């Protein structure tokens, strides 16, 4: 890993040790306090994408390193950082960017616009100079600013005039708001006429950061399983001594290490869209598999929140649904692999 990223990694590790590790359950299940958000902001984590990214995607890569390491302990904090940075790649107004960057305000982007078929996540229209309607499935709906698509396809920045609507069930990242938003706003800005295209570009550029969260979660949960298997005994042996358990976990950790190597390769080379999507696809699957195995190793204790395992089981699935569409992403990937439209029947 390049030196710059190593320094960044150590910064996040220190941050986790000081502020996250002993607090991770609360950060997952309860509302993140302003104080914690300010600390994330003070580290510069909310403004990593504020400037126009260079051709090598160095901002995206640095963000990925941060997200990977935050997710090891508190995946919800990584998602919070991801949403803020996704917002910052699209918003333009300096005052708003600064406010989101310093943590005094928050911003989110409706990823659901890309994950659902059109019309399945609500309706927003401009009517007499006001944006009106309801948008479903907004992760970060407790934010001050929302970037979202209108039915007409324009990407708008809602600055005020919206409220939290129907609260959705929360499988994962429970400290991040997740609901519909009810909008009746004259305080908005049209960011792009061809909003879906702009949103799509951002979504694709976030393949590596999303994969980084999945990898960080895999590292965090597997470390807990390794630690537990070394000390817990059953039938007169440590759990690690039993072949099924040891082999399953070892096999998944091998997969994780291979993906991490691939991740690091991507960090040190120009961004390749196909490879970034490969990584995302595989990392999301791994996070689910490794969380399941780690929970199983913990037995009944894994099923209780106090052991900090079950949150990875929930979060890994939530991550793969909130930031990924199996069908859409695979169609896209298949088309790249076959070099012509593929996988659509």
């Amino acid at each position, binding site marked *: 890993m390049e030196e710059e990223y190593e320094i960044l990694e150590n910064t996040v590790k220190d941050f986790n040790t000081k502020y996250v590790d002993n607090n991770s359950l609360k950060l997952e299940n309860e509302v993140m306090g302003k104080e914690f958000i300010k600390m994330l902001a003070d580290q510069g984590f909310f403004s990593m994408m504020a400037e126009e990214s260079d051709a090598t995607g160095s901002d995206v890569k640095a963000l990925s390193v941060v997200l990977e390491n935050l997710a090891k302990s508190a995946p919800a904090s990584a998602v919070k950082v991801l949403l803020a940075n996704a917002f910052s790649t699209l918003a333009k107004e300096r005052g708003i960017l600064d406010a989101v960057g310093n943590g005094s305000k928050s911003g989110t982007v409706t990823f*659901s616009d890309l*994950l*659902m*078929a059109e019309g*399945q*996540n609500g309706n927003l229209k401009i009517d007499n100079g006001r944006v009106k309607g309801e948008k*479903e*499935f907004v992760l970060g709906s407790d934010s001050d600013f929302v970037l979202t698509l209108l039915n007409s396809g324009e990407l708008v920045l809602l600055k005020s005039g919206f409220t939290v609507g129907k609260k*959705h*069930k929360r*499988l994962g990242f429970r400290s991040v708001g997740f609901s519909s938003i009810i909008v009746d706003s004259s305080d908005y800005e049209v960011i792009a006429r061809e909003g879906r295209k702009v949103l799509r570009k951002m979504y694709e550029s976030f393949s590596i950061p999303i994969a980084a969260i999945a990898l960080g979660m895999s590292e965090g949960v597997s470390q807990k399983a390794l630690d537990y298997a070394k000390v817990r005994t*059953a*039938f*007169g042996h440590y759990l690690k001594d*039993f072949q*099924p*358990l040891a082999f399953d976990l070892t096999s998944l950790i091998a997969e994780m290490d291979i993906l991490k190597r691939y991740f690091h390769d991507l960090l040190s080379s120009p961004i390749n869209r196909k490879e970034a999507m490969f990584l995302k696809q595989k990392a999301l699957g791994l996070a*689910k598999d490794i969380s*399941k195995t780690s*929970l*199983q190793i913990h*037995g*009944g204790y*894994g*099923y*209780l*929140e*106090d052991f900090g395992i*079950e949150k990875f*089981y*929930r979060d890994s*699935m*939530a991550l*793969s*649904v*909130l930031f990924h*569409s*199996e*069908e859409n992403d*695979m169609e896209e990937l298949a088309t790249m692999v076959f070099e012509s439209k593929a996988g*659509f*029947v």
Partner: protein
Amino acid sequence: MDFELNDDAKDAIVKAKEFADKYFTEEVAEMADREERFPTDIVAVSKREKILDFSNPWKVLVTIEELVRRDPGLGISVTISAFGAEIFMFFGNDAQKEKYMNPVFAGQKTLGLGVTEAGGGSDVANIKTEAKLDGDSYILNGGKMFISNGQIADYFLVLARTSPPPSPEKKHRGLSVFVVDSQSAGFSINKLHGKLGVRATNTAELIFNNVRVPKESMVGEEGKGFYYIMTFFNISRIYVAAQGLGIAHGALDRLVEYSKKYGELSETGELKESIQLAIAEIATRVEATRNLTYKAASYLFKFTPNPIITSMSKYYAAETAVFSTRRAMELMSLHGLTSDLERFFRDAKILDIWEGTTEVEKLIITRMMLKEGGA
């Protein structure tokens, strides 16, 4: 070979459906899950309406399947009141059956089973709870973990060590089963909070601090407790398999419904093939689970239990429940995440753990096959 359920069992399914339609509303299920609240009122109604007819085990099995298919947390809560009662049935004396088992089967009392311990998990023979003879009583000390009905049961069947094992390899000897009244002096309970799923069910830690029980509280013979518990697991695992079947079928119901409403069509006008194949795979696994579960039940209900088939059914049902809820969630995307499928996904995972982990079931299958020379 007849794969048809008899009319009584079919009637039980209809009755369970009607009950679930009336009482398992999403509002109730969500509140029970959110607040980790046992659905006392619904359980009371289910007892009054005799939703579980213990005179016919097939009716019990299909009722569990049907209720869990509608909602796992509520379904299990309604069908677990008599948990452990078969131990009385097979090993208890007449007085114990009269005093403890009959009121449980009549829906007047609730039973719990205390086997698992904090340091033991699957290693049942390694339990530390002790029962020492003191005059006409036994005095129990120790603790039990992850006990269903922990806070609500009137009585518990408790596995405790009554004599030291003859050797480290024979730890399963010297264990006995006692019935303990939840009002006994020295007995206390800690409700467990923060479960991943089945949050409507009541789970607790039991603590025995010099709990004195009369000698007559011992169920069956002294030293045979391990055998009794294993015999019970060979019964209860079939009902756990029915839970898995219900969860998997519930996930399938939701995926099929989703595909009709939201499934993307290809140019041919058909559903895109990846979702078609996923539905077929889940449906096939559900059917395979049903066949295994009913086969295991068929052996058991004729009093010729087949532990190999029983363990196969429990292991496969748990795996199918976890697999089906995950695949359905992946395909239903945000529609799944924001629907009750989210609860099914969390609930399913416990089946891999309770009543013998999946790994333990697999070991039972192979060891018994090797011992018997075939399945």
